[in-house]
């Protein structure tokens, strides 16, 4: 059965320079589409992928990724904002790789657009008020 899934990969520092996605495509016959990549040398990398292929290939591919030491997050998770804790300071604005936080210019209130959110989770710990939460 052909499937399509969106996943977030967190690469530990030691794997940043490995050709992992190349192997994923070649050895497991999966088509990939990179939705977002943030890889800095000597630091953890982040990749958001859409994977298309047969279920059995997908399962084997995910197993391969897990064995390499990559942490995989499914986009079936959701990042939500705890409105009671958010103070609209805006510290999240430049942390979010997809621009999901937008300042409304006249009020300077911060709008969180969950359709732009790729659930990378970078805002969760960067939010000084801990207003961003991961929901499963």
């Amino acid at each position, binding site marked *: 059965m052909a499937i399509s899934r969106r996943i977030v990969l967190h690469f530990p520092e030691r794997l940043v320079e490995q050709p992992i996605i190349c192997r994923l495509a070649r050895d497991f016959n999966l088509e990939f589409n990179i939705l977002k990549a943030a890889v800095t040398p000597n*630091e953890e990398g982040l990749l958001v992928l859409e994977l298309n292929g047969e279920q059995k290939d997908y399962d084997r591919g995910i197993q391969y990724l897990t064995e390499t030491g990559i942490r995989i997050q499914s986009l079936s998770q959701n990042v939500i904002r705890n409105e009671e804790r958010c*103070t609209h300071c*805006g*510290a*999240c604005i430049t942390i979010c790789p997809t621009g999901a936080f937008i300042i409304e210019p006249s009020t300077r209130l911060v709008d969180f657009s969950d359709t732009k959110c790729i659930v990378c989770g970078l805002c969760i710990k960067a939010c000084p*008020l801990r207003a961003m939460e991961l929901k499963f």
Partner: protein
Amino acid sequence: MAKTIAEINEKIRKGQAVVVTAEKIIEVVEEKGVKRAAEEVDVVTTGTFGPMCSSGAFLNIGHSKPRIKLGGGKVYLNDVPVYTGLAAVDIFLGVTALPEDDPRNKFYPGEFNYGGGHVIEELVAGKDIRLVATAYGTDCYPRKKLETLINIRDINEAVLFNIRNAYQNYNVAVNLSDRTRYTYMGVLKPNLGNANYSTAGQLSPLLNDPYYKTIGIGTKIFLGGGIGYVAWQGTQHNPNVLRRDNGVPRRPAGTLSVIGDLKQMKPEWLRGTSMLGYGSTITVGIGVPIPILSEEILRYTAVKDADIITPIVDYSEAYPQRKPDILGEVSYARLKSGRIEVQGKEVPTASLSSYPRAVEIAQILKEWIQKGEFLLSELVAPLPGVESGITFKNLEERPIEGR
């Protein structure tokens, strides 16, 4: 037209005082000019809501039976250690204190999800707090151990006393290095990936009274959702910095030490805060009313974000190594546009201080004054000004050996 605080208070009592926020006064002056605005407006309210680390609370928890002398002993509130170097049941809870088992930056960057600031927020919210104490025992205070819940309702005093708040202007932080830096100015992405600032700008108390002509010791203020007072100049108060023609400092300058009864404050204006890789702290809401005693004072309150400039500092090298270098200066209007230019690169900006909440504080204070619930106080003494000759001292280390 000079008014006195007594005259303004008389108008407040009668419900006739004209009060506007430090944001609104900009429009009023543009529309009516300084002279007319100064005649018509009695009070301008300011506000700020940002992380302020030099904050904490004194608590007197009451005497247990039998008695215990906490002074010289060890006390924890929700596992967060407090200072006990005081009399038997007085303690001081600082906002950056961390539970002893918090891993700090051992797993870098540390999360610092719970510290003294969070305990204060929960205390103010009326939640029970777990107190665990050990003491050495004396003839008059025999008890050596105490484990109990305490609640702000039941303790004698809870006094917020912040030794340094409300910085008059502050650095913009960037990172020139090739790795992410976790700082008190937030997460700074490598290679000028972002620029963080922390101010209410045109709404900020001391930026609306650059020479401390009305804000001084004894000034009654909005503090943490309740009423407080300016107790003293804050630590590191440094009036002698570069200033613009409008008097506004171009570098971090004056600071306030503030005090108030924690029991009448609100948790939404005292928020436990966690700076990734740096530590825990508290976000404090402060609003200061500025009595319009003269045209000069009114002119200061009409300051705009475009007129306030601040230095850009590299937090990967210059700041930690205490080098004086700055990467340029930028106005708050620019910072609020979302992008600034640093070393020829366009850098996205973010704030750590909440402007919408600062607006709300200035608005609440305005309403208190309009309703006649909040009268202005006369100054007991001014803050040290430019003429004080204060210089900002760094620590120059000296060897201890041979003493």
